[in-house]
């Protein structure tokens, strides 16, 4: 196992870079960071649309969220894979396809978290903001969302972990991330699949476990901050 790591760690970490495209773990992390950051504004827009009093905003947003959540991610990736080139009129690489699919997919899930956060705030917050004479936009962006985002920190970290895990689907469309890199190593070695994929699992585990532990720590801190009754989230 150590031998495999010694021979291939560079491919694992950054792919063929600088002699080719960047890949491996670096690409996985890039996809996860970019996926979550790009999906964030989309998710806020979706959540606000779902809570809107205009039916023509609420309806389509609700439909999008339900359809995306009803489909396996892989189906969604395949749709992106052949629909995106038609939409923008040029061929699209695996990484771009994956990123686009991840953004829409994550945004749908994230919007539900944000929506729950908004609905979970006391109604008095909106009423007080309105009583001060604030309109919809300042109420939402200066009073409501900052509180929601603060409360959402643990969920956001968990969502980041999900995004890291979901980038592994790049393997299926040959996007050059760490799972794909591992399969390349496996194809070269042929005889040690358990070691190669075990190493891959260990890599993801180390990364994600650190982050889920951070999420739990944040959750405890937030609960303490609210002067809570020591109610631990399950």
């Amino acid at each position, binding site marked *: 196992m150590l031998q495999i790591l010694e021979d291939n760690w560079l491919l694992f970490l950054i792919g063929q870079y600088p002699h080719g495209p960047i890949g491996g773990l670096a690409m996985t992390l890039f996809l996860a960071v970019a996926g979550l950051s790009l999906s964030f504004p989309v998710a806020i827009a979706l959540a606000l649309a779902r809570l809107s009093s205009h039916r023509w905003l609420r309806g389509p947003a609700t439909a999008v969220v339900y359809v995306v959540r*009803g*489909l396996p991610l*892989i189906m969604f990736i395949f749709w992106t894979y052949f629909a995106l080139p038609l939409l923008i009129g040029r061929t699209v690489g695996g990484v771009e396809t994956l990123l686009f699919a991840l953004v829409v997919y994550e945004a749908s899930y994230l919007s539900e978290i944000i929506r729950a956060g908004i609905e979970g705030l006391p109604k008095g917050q909106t009423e007080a903001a309105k009583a001060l004479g604030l309109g919809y936009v300042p109420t939402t962006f200066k009073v409501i969302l900052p509180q929601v985002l603060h409360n959402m920190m643990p969920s956001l970290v968990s969502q980041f972990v999900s995004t890291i895990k*979901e980038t592994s*689907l790049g*393997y299926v469309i040959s996007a050059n991330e760490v799972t794909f890199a591992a399969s390349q190593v*496996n194809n070269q070695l042929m005889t040690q699949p358990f070691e190669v*994929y075990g190493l891959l699992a260990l890599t993801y585990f180390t990364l994600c476990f650190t982050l889920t532990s951070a999420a739990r720590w944040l959750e405890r801190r937030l609960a303490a901050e609210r002067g809570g009754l020591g109610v631990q989230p399950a």
Partner: protein
Amino acid sequence: MGYVFDPAAVLTGQYLDWFIWGLATTIALTLAAWLLGMTIGIILTLVRMLPFRPFEWLVAGYVEYHRNVPLLVQILVWYFGVPQLLPRALRMWVNSHHSEFLLAMVALGLASAAYITEDLRSGIRSIPKTQYEAARSIGFSYLQAMSYVILPQALRIVIPPLINQTLLLFKNTSLAMAIGVGELTYRTREVDSYTFKTFEAFAVATIIYLAISFAIMALGAFADRRLKLELR
């Protein structure tokens, strides 16, 4: 030259058969992995409730592994890696008995078990201890208190998250295509590459996935409404 959207082209003869077989495989894989996940999930829940600390750590380790490694990677480990460790005779047996389906089922089932045992645990934990004490104080035995007071309430709490797990499992069976299980996504790609009717093929699969997902979601929402408990 306009593109004519013609779903009928992929819903005839051989292609229709592929869709039907794909759907049947998806459902079979969901059910098989669900049963495995439920069985192991219940066993893990019982084990972690035993008053012996190391058992709790073992189950916690099991849960953490399955939560922090992508499901696809778990499937790849089972399909490519684990057979290498099996004794030759067992490996031959697995290989001659639809190894991809069996190993996908094991990977999906074990991962579900990790989530199921978490749901079961939080369901049982959310019943206040006073319920048990009250039951004992009016003269119920341990078994009576459990079966008449605690478990009926815990089950009501647990059923909605379990339905949600079933939905996730159903969608996750699509990952089995990566190791060549002929489930719905795999078959859809096959129809696509034979007919070049990409949109039609994927539209059919999408509608099938959505119909089943929505049915499970509706069941979950119904259970949520009907079983809601006011505790404390």
